[in-house]
């Protein structure tokens, strides 16, 4: 099956008068009603908001006014992207009842384009997890096998897109949280270059690593959404915006493209079927005229501990704001302000969030700062340098997204460190601030999707998306999921 741009197809149908936006939106609302009980992808549905927007789009169409490509397209947002007047909880008890009074820049942009928001989607609490199981609202399911996880932390978005109960969605990626669930659910997930998309209004986990990006059913859709949400933003001083648009550069022509392959990425693959799929993908790229360039990246083995030290250190600082005073959950019984804050945080945060806050506080504390935080920060610089060096010899790097396919629910509860190891292929990209796209490249013996990621140099989203597009349009490796709106 060769995916086509769902956004373009729906846009064409609406502008040709074959489909009203209300009819389209109602189909998605009905599909959510049928599917969400099993998948738990949505933690909040905004049907009336969606229908009101749809009516506004239909009014424009009836008046003969042009609509933009994303106008009227039903979509979803991860529950850590702030939405003015619509609850945003990071799927945490501590943000129960919290309703932002402002929009994240990405949502402000899409809202301005009359994007049809179907609801907010499930995630690991505060984006800390790889399975969507640490959500206060309960685990989400994988549309291909509901007993398996959809991945995380943007698992709800990936499940919604794979099950076709949203055309596309926005997730956030701190250590793989867009790409890993995209891989597990058989959809496309783009983690943009750090600084290409504004983080304003994204509830922070680790500010130097977080980045918002699209999860879509096709590469072209990812490019269209990325082009819409990228841009300089004065509300985020680290956001310089993308250097170029991408959707207009999807030619599928990759002759002469140099694809770097570091064996260190492949050493940790746990399933032979995943390794086989990656090897076949490499051969396919060669058949399209790409050149494979092997290289060594030994520093990669330090990426995971560096990531967990830095991410947890930043999290311990970012999550210091949750004190029960200004918004969200507050403990019922307390004796003094300090007791109130401690009890609120201990009752409001889940176990994984508390573990990460404790690790972050530990590595920043006196006596351990130099040995852990400072050393990790400097090693980050070495990893950044190693990637820059790699890109002097290749245009993109191909790697597995995850060393395995979607695991069964319950796996992550067994051993925290064992779970962290599943992030081995995704975190280096965040450490180095690079763009990467995960696309499906086959399925395992149980029919669960396998993903590969194409990593690019900074602000080279157009290069990786075009490489992904060339593969998507010629390899027949996408895994259909017969659910949702048909």
């Amino acid at each position, binding site marked *: 099956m060769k995916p086509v741009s769902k956004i373009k197809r729906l846009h064409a149908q609406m502008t040709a008068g074959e489909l009203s936006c209300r009819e389209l939106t109602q189909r998605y609302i009905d599909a959510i009603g049928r599917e969400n009980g099993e998948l738990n992808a949505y933690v909040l549905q905004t049907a009336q908001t969606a229908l009101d927007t749809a009516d506004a789009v239909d009014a424009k169409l009836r008046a003969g006014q042009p609509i933009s490509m994303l106008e009227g397209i039903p979509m979803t947002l991860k529950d850590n992207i702030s939405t003015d007047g619509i609850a945003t909880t990071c799927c945490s008890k501590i943000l129960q009842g919290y309703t932002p009074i402002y929009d994240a820049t990405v949502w402000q942009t899409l809202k301005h384009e009359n994007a049809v928001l179907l609801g907010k989607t499930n995630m690991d609490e505060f984006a800390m997890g790889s399975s969507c199981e640490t959500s206060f609202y309960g685990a989400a399911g994988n549309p291909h096998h509901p007993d398996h996880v959809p991945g995380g932390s943007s698992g709800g978005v990936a499940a919604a897109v794979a099950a076709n109960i949203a055309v596309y969605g926005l997730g956030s990626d701190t250590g793989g949280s867009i790409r890993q669930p995209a891989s597990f659910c058989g959809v496309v997930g783009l983690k943009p270059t750090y*600084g290409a998309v504004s983080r304003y209004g994204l509830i922070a986990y680790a500010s130097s690593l977080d980045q918002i990006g699209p999860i879509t059913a096709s590469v072209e859709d990812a490019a269209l959404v990325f082009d819409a949400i990228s841009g300089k933003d004065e509300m985020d001083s680290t956001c310089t915006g993308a250097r170029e648009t991408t959707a207009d550069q999807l030619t599928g022509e990759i002759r002469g493209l140099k694809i770097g392959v570091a064996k260190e990425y492949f050493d940790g693959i746990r399933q032979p079927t995943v390794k086989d799929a990656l090897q076949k993908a490499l051969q396919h790229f060669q058949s399209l005229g790409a050149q494979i360039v092997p290289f060594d990246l030994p520093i990669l083995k330090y990426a995971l501990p560096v990531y967990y030290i830095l991410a947890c250190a930043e999290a311990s600082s970012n999550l210091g704001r949750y004190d029960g005073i*200004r918004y969200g959950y507050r403990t019922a019984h307390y004796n003094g302000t300090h007791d109130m804050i401690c009890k609120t945080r201990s009752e409001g945060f889940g176990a994984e969030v508390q573990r990460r806050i404790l690790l972050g506080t530990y590595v920043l504390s006196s006596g351990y700062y130099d040995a852990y935080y400072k050393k990790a920060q400097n090693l980050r610089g070495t990893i*950044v340098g190693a990637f820059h060096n790699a890109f002097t010899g290749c245009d993109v790097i191909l790697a597995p997204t995850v060393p395995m396919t979607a695991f069964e629910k319950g796996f992550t509860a067994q051993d925290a460190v064992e779970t962290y190891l599943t992030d081995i292929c995704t975190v280096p990209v965040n450490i180095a601030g690079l763009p990467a796209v995960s696309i499906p490249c086959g399925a395992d013996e149980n029919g669960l999707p396998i993903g590969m990621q194409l990593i690019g140099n900074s602000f080279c989203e157009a290069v990786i998306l075009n490489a992904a597009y060339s593969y998507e349009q010629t390899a027949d490796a996408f895994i259909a999921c017969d659910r949702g709106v048909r």
Partner: protein
Amino acid sequence: MVTREEILDIALLAKLSVDEEKLDELTKQMMDIIAFADTINAYEGQTGEFDNINGLSNVFREDTVVASYPREQILKNVDGGENGFFPVKKKM
């Protein structure tokens, strides 16, 4: 090696309460996680100072006064607040 006492100290810094019955399990989990973090100290190569990924230095702008959010809007998340403030119990 991290001790129960260190976990309690760190929890105090992080403003978290740790139940006595969960302390042993949490200490063991933290020992495993810190041992994992400790693997970076096996790196023997040279590293330089690293600041941030974008190479940004301080980002300054003109200090101009702009409109803020209305107080009643900010207090919406605490049921409107009390007398225009965030309410907490009297500490006496």
